[in-house]
């Protein structure tokens, strides 16, 4: 039977194929990626886009969590100072309620409480990276100013707005408590009770001083409750952080199985392709010179 005497096109196709396979394998080994262009695996390439979106989103959640932690810690430590100041005010009140004190002693105590009141206003005006943390969403102007015309001795310039920040897919965290709620709440008015104590001390009425001191204690109890918000927020952020880290790991694993290369398999493929190529070349080298002409003299 006659066969095609011109076998070079077939052999060349074989050589091209094994060369192309080698190139693909080498590229995969060099990049560590099985999918270098979408046509390598269209479904995996599309899933990789989504995977990268999730990874980058998760990184952002981690960033948000870190940023918020700083702010929560600032607010919490401000409230911790508020607690200290209120405790001082209470002991000053107890001291002032002592009927043996002279009027001038009571005035002196009143001045000390006034100093605490100013400190309280400063604490209420705590800011983090240029934004006041107790002003509601009016973060650009100081929320508290001393104002003797107000019954509580201070005026609140903030609002009751709250912000929230996304810290995981579909999960947000409230990032602030308005100052009006923290310092002038219905359950215990920090600013109002201090002003009441100052007025009582100035008037020298020990009954009033006692009542006012009780008010300050109530305010302290209420403020401590409010402070829990920041404490638990920090806890939530910490938990969230470790969840996010797990998420990052699992997303990377997913990416690896989507587009990553199995080194062992590819290395084997590469050596197979090389073997195929050298076998083809060897066969070609053997075949080409053979013809009847070699045997004719």
């Amino acid at each position: 039977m006659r066969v095609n005497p011109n076998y070079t096109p077939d052999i060349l196709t074989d050589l091209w194929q094994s060369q192309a396979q080698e190139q693909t394998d080498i590229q995969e080994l060099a990049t560590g990626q099985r999918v270098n262009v979408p046509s390598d695996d269209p479904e995996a390439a599309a899933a990789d886009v989504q995977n990268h979106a999730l990874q980058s989103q998760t990184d952002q959640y981690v960033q948000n969590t870190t940023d918020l932690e700083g702010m929560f810690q600032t607010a919490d430590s401000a409230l911790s100072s508020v607690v200290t100041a209120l405790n001082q005010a209470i002991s000053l009140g107890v001291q002032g309620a002592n009927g043996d004190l002279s009027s001038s002693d009571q005035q002196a105590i009143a001045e000390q409480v006034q100093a605490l009141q100013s400190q309280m206003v400063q604490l209420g005006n705590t800011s983090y990276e240029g934004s006041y943390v107790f002003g509601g969403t009016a973060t650009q102007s100081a929320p508290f100013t001393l104002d003797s015309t107000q019954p509580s001795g201070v005026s609140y310039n903030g609002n009751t707005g709250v912000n929230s920040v996304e810290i995981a897919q579909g999960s947000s965290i409230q990032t602030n408590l308005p100052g009006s709620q923290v310092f002038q709440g219905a359950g215990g008015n920090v600013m109002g009770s201090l002003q009441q104590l100052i007025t009582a001390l100035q008037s020298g009425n020990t009954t009033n001083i006692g009542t006012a001191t009780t008010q300050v204690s109530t305010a302290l109890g209420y403020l401590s409750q409010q402070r829990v918000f920041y404490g638990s927020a920090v806890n939530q952020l910490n938990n969230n952080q470790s969840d996010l880290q797990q998420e990052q790991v699992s997303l990377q694993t997913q990416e690896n199985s989507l587009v990553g290369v199995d080194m062992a398999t590819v290395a084997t493929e590469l050596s197979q392709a090389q073997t195929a190529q050298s076998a083809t070349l060897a066969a070609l080298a053997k075949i080409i010179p053979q013809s009847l002409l070699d045997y004719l003299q």
Partner: protein
Amino acid sequence: MGSLSSSMWIASAALGADQGALDATSNNIANQNTPGYTREVADLTEAAPTVEGNLTYGNGVVLQKIQSITDQVLQIQIANENSQQARAQTQSSALQQVQVPFSNATQGIGADFTAFFNSISQLSTDPTNMTDRQSVLSAAQTLASDFNSTEQNLDSIRSGLNQSVTQNVTQINTLTQQIAQLNVQVGEMQQLGQDPGNLGDQETQLIQQLSQLTNVNEIQTEHGLTLTTGNGTPLVVGGQSFALQTTNGPSGMTDVSSQGQDITSSLQGGQLGGNLEVRDTAIPGLLTQLDNLASQFATSFNAAQASGYDLNGNAGQALFSDTSGAGAASNLKVAISDPSLIAASSDGTAGSDGNVVNLLAVQTQALPSGENPVDTYANLVSQTGTLASQAATEVTASTASLNQLNDQLGAVSGVNLDEETTNLMNYQRAYEAAARVVSTVDELTQSVLDMGSGVTAAP
């Protein structure tokens, strides 16, 4: 009755026939690597015998003709497969370029979307931070410019293909002209019962080249070949060729017409078919989706902007310029340059981030086209990949079947050196033997002529 002169005549005819056969063999050996060459075989037959009484004298050998050995059906199959392979090859290389802007998951539109929404998420932790606000604008800028460049990339690949269309048509016209000229000669020879030989090979070779440019139908008529495009537009009829024309279509793309009729959409196969398919179907399909994504995303993000307030307490303005229709992706621009105009606030106070929720919702909510922005983009990535990998698979498949067909044809028409060398030896021996007959007959004739000269009268 046998005679010396008839022996001489038989031997000299044999010399001629063997010389012809040697010619054919020599021609085969000379053309063993010529593309499209089909081997020739010397058709030797016995000459009609002379019958005298009960004696029949053979009259030697006659070289009837030198026949090219080929298979018309295989040639047509190869032409079709050539056309398939060239189409797939052209598509594959164009689509390889098309998928480049969609290749990197860490760059490009998909990554830009996430970076943009991340910058907004970052802003929510500190809505008055001007650096964060500037980052949102920069991310929006990057997103818009990647939309622009992706669309421009596809557009420039498309206009490259458009130029190829014009070149393909020019090549087709040159080939059909050459084929028409050959067709006249080949047709005449066939009518006379002659083997068109090398002219036929040349014509077949040109038809193969033509099939690589577009799908061709061959009809054998008594006046030679008629060639038409796949849908029947005549290209060559006998000695006449019909040139295709190119005109600028309304969309700025080149249309192909024949005798005033637009045949662009009916051209299939070959490089021309491949170029047209990617130019008119694959890329426009991707462009439409890219445009829809750009305009729908811009619209829904602008709506989210409008539901909030900027840093100065004013209602949110559109962040992206309104774009729609063809070219939306390349026209997408960021409409504002003042970072304070990003509407993060829901109540008009600067420190509020209440509208961020609405801005971020654009990331997860389905666009009118059915999926959220990143998923829509991922879908585009998968489509470009599928197009390119399908074309590559077709190239592999059609190359394999083309090789197989060529092997089959080679088995019929290819020049085998062993065979030719054997023939060479046979014809050489036959020629030598015939020459020996001539010299032998010559000697005999000499003897006959000498018969009288040496004889003297008997004493």
